[in-house]
């Protein structure tokens, strides 16, 4: 682990924000799970199963929100066990860090390794992201941003906004009253629809 890095929690606090759409999408990702008990009358969830029931031992790709709910309820036996082969961070797509962090809710042996790997990845990529955000005020950065994770994109646009506001302040333009951006966008859209 890089020196001076903050300590990593291997079990982050659960729901951040109930209404957070990004959190909802991030927990939509599927992970391979193995059924520990039989479940009656829900056989339709597994197309390969015969009959009305889900059999114990069946392997299913379940969305993260469901696996998490079923494998950790204090006081009850485990219904599901997540498959450790899920620890493939490259499959995580646009919610790399968020989904990865969610995986730490499970008791994988690889948890600490996974956490530090995510942190190192972030640190390594952060420098380039910051550099480009500070220099690309007038350039097309879509090539870079298309490769960024959801959180990295937010970092990038925050950096870009900062530079833009600084330049405005430097030229003494901050006191100028401007048209609301929403109104400008709305007019643009209307115009392009008429054309």
């Amino acid at each position, binding site marked *: 682990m890089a020196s001076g890095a903050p300590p990593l929690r291997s079990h982050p606090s659960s729901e951040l924000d109930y209404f957070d759409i990004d959190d909802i999408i991030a927990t939509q990702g599927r992970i391979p799970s193995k059924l520990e008990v*039989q479940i009656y*009358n829900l056989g339709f969830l597994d197309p390969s199963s015969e009959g009305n029931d889900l059999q114990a031992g069946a392997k299913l790709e379940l969305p993260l929100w469901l696996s998490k709910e079923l494998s950790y309820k204090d006081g009850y036996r485990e219904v599901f066990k997540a498959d450790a082969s899920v620890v493939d961070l490259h499959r995580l797509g646009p919610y790399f860090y968020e989904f990865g962090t969610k995986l730490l809710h499970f008791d994988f042996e690889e948890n600490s390794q996974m956490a530090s790997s995510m942190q190192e990845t972030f640190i390594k990529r952060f420098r380039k992201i910051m550099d480009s955000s500070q220099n690309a005020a007038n350039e097309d950065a879509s090539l870079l941003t298309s490769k960024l994770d959801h959180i990295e994109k937010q970092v990038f646009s925050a950096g870009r906004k900062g530079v833009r506001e600084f330049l405005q302040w430097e030229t003494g333009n901050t006191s100028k*009253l401007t048209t609301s951006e*929403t109104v400008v966008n709305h007019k643009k859209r209307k115009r392009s629809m008429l054309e």
Partner: protein
Amino acid sequence: MDGTLPPYNEDLVRQVLEEMKILFEQNQKEVALTVDGETGLFSGVHLRHASLERNKRCLLSYIYNRMLRIKGLRWEFGTVLPEDIKYNLCEQEIQWFTKYNKSLATYMRTVGLDLTQDMKPPKSLYIEVRCLEDYGEFETEDGTVVLLKKNSQHFLPRSHCEHLIRQGILEHIL
């Protein structure tokens, strides 16, 4: 936020609610059976319950996030929404928007302040503005009538033209 608001997806919301009804009824049934002594149904009930909670969260988040956007629109467009945006709101959302407008107006009256004024700290009472479109006559608070014609320039009290600048009718010249 870029000022867009997709149409309220009534069909999908109804589908989710129907699914929830089925899940709920099945759960009621199996709980009743369990009370009568049947065993092993619990995992299924648990799974359906988790799905119910998930659906509830998705629906509430959908409504809540749309509400936040609509609230934002009030501060961008003012009290009247453009027709094409209003078209995408559902009936209850329009009601909410009207009520929000009312609450905001009542509050501003009580504190005696127009909160949508001076979004940036004012440095002078009068400012130089250029007209970006033909707007017509505009009456200032002291009764003077100004003709706002495209490309004409005016020296007006800041408090009178801030809204027109926000709406893209006037341009502030430094």
